[in-house]
């Protein structure tokens, strides 16, 4: 055979092998916009750390993780989401650590028809269910679920009057809008409702007003360590009633900053924070313990934070839906994203680190009362109460 013929044969062979179907499937791309800097950094950093721990391969497909920082700014988050969906052509979006960011990204997710796992707390992210929100899933417990746990505990402890002090942001407002009707329905009278800013140097005025009203219990709703400030001020004023905090403070730094002032405070949480204290019969324990052990092995003992658990749960729900979606379409195509969304909506009994997910067309959170429990701060550590 002549050289030219050999070359032609070689080129044909190469072309055939490259054109063979099933040899070069596109990677699955997961895009994330995380608040690793800015005021919500205490939520974003554990979330991002968890993303780095997650597998790089699933169901025989390679996963491309693209993690961007939005500096807790919704404008940056929108920019990131546009980049992820148009330039990087991601199959799913993770992230949105704060409610303003999550709500801003709902439009983009529905416009680009990309499934979106938001971590933020506001129920408005997934409800009321409409055409836009059918692409959005919420990985964390609804505020209503957590506030419900607190109000239940208050009623059980014979609380008749309550004071509220919340952060002057979306989280505080969301908690207030859940707490007020729930408390009133349970027969608890709200005698004081105050607000404070994250970076305030003192909340003396607000605490004075609350203490003067003499409530049986005080509910502090803020994100991260700033929530310790009202607790410390309450202790300084000699307040002896019950204290409750929201579920956005569950990390070791909060205990460190609050110190003795937090002793005896009640909080709602998912299983992920205290898996060691759960009974072995609880199916969530195994998943939560596995996650927490791996996280703390990599990032240090005692660094666990519930926000990281939400990232892990988003991945588990996503991973549960991937095999079925792969049968329908290839990654990187709109059909794959639609199939993914449909499969996620059918998620049944997916055990996460915070709870068990049962997602339906109208309920895009999927968590029930197994995802919440009341804990108390005892001797500077979290102790399960129920």
């Amino acid at each position, binding site marked *: 055979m002549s050289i030219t013929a050999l070359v032609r044969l070689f080129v044909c062979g190469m072309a055939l092998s490259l054109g063979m179907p099933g040899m070069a499937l596109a990677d699955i791309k997961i895009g994330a916009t995380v608040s690793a*800097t*800015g*005021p919500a*950094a*205490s939520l*974003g*950093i554990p979330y991002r750390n968890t993303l780095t721990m997650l597998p790089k391969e699933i169901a025989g497909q390679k996963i491309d993780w693209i993690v961007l920082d939005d500096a807790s700014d919704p404008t940056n988050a929108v920019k990131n989401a546009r980049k992820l969906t148009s330039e990087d052509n991601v199959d799913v979006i993770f992230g949105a650590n704060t409610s303003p960011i999550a709500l801003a990204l709902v439009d983009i997710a529905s416009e680009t028809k990309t499934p979106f796992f938001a971590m933020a707390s506001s129920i408005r992210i997934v409800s009321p269910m409409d055409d836009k929100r059918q692409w959005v899933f919420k990985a964390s417990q609804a505020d209503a679920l957590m506030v419900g746990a607190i109000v239940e505990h208050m009623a059980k402890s014979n609380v008749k009057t309550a004071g509220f002090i919340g952060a*002057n942001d979306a989280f505080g407002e969301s908690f207030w809008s859940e707490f007020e009707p729930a408390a009133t329905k349970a027969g608890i009278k709200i005698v004081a409702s*105050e*607000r*404070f*800013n*994250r*970076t*305030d*140097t*003192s*909340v*003396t*005025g*607000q605490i*004075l*007003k609350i203490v*003067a009203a003499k409530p049986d219990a005080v509910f502090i709703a803020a994100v*991260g*360590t*700033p929530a*310790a*400030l009202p607790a410390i001020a309450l202790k300084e004023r000699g307040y002896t009633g019950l204290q409750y905090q929201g579920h956005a403070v569950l*990390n070791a*730094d909060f205990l*460190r*900053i609050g*110190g003795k002032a937090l002793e005896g405070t009640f909080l709602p949480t998912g299983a992920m924070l205290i898996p060691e204290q759960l009974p072995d019969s609880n199916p969530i324990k195994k998943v939560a313990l596995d996650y927490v052990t791996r996280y703390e092995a990599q990032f240090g003992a005692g660094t666990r934070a519930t926000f990281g658990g939400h990232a892990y749960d988003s991945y588990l729900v996503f991973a549960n839906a991937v095999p079925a979606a792969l049968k329908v379409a290839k990654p990187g195509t709109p059909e794959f994203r639609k199939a993914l969304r449909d499969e996620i909506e059918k998620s049944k009994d997916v055990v996460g680190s915070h709870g068990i997910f049962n997602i339906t067309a109208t309920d895009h959170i999927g968590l029930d009362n197994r995802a919440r429990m009341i804990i108390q701060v005892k001797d500077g550590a979290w102790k399960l109460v129920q």
Partner: protein
Amino acid sequence: MDLDIAVILAKDGIVNGAIYALLGLAIVLVFSVTRVIMVPQGEFVTFGALTFAMLQAGRIPGTLLLLLIATGWGICSLLLDAVTGKARFSRSLLISALKSLIPAFMALVMIFAVDAPRRGPLIQILTTMVIVVPLGPLLYRVVYAPLASSSILVLLMVSVAVHLALESLGLLFFGAEGFRIPALFDFNLDLGGFFLPGPAVSVIVVAVVLMVLLSVGFGATIFGKALRATASNPTGARIVGIRADRAGSIAFTIAAFVGVLCGLLIGPVTTIYYDGGFLIALKGFVAAIIGGLSSYPLAVIGAISVGICESLASFYASAFKDAIVFALTLPILLWLSFRMPHREEG
């Protein structure tokens, strides 16, 4: 609202007002000498408090690295000036380059030789001062001195950029969560029935002492008068033999010192976050505006009124507290613009 509550609110307002007064004084000082609006003033507060908190926790603070880098940068820019011909390559240039090495050297000695992270609070306060205060004049030398003849607007934009850069560095060095400093003075002053805790007393005492020192220093000493001369007429001051850039360095050193002092004073009272300094300094800026960015006594009075106004607002309308405090500037600015003669920026 009874007398008890009014007294507690007044006390809270005065203590906060003292902090705002210190920061307002620093801002007025820097503006009157260099025409720079000191937006990064809050960063000195947080860097001071958080560096001390890190030392208390037995760790080496990241601000040490910033000091070393800034010192290196300062020396390089000095030598670059000599190479490009902007300054004469003389012995005095070399001496000033070597002199700028002293703070960095002392900081290294304090951290590694004296082992500050493992010593008592007094040594740690000294170490904090040695690490953070030199950042002031270094900042001036590296960022502002080359721009000394620019308009106030350009200097303001540069200040905002510096603030953003330092805040991000703060996140890098200290993390997203805050720190509390244990109270250095753990006593309670009993004033006829109501208690003033130690940290509050120290804030007020330090604020008063510093205000007296600053007004005496600027009013009575040749040194202070030279600084004021530089502010009102830089060319004239240069003719008389006062060095403008040295005046700027000194102003920034004092501002940094006041900032670190504030950080150490409010550290026991509240949690300090890497981004908390901005809001505190901003309220100090409101106080400085009430002083017309030129008068120290008015700035102090303004600061106390800001503090008390904030206290009352937090009791009556806590959701609008900051809005009310910042809205205070509007009538003040209106009044000042009617009262002061309009002067074109030279």
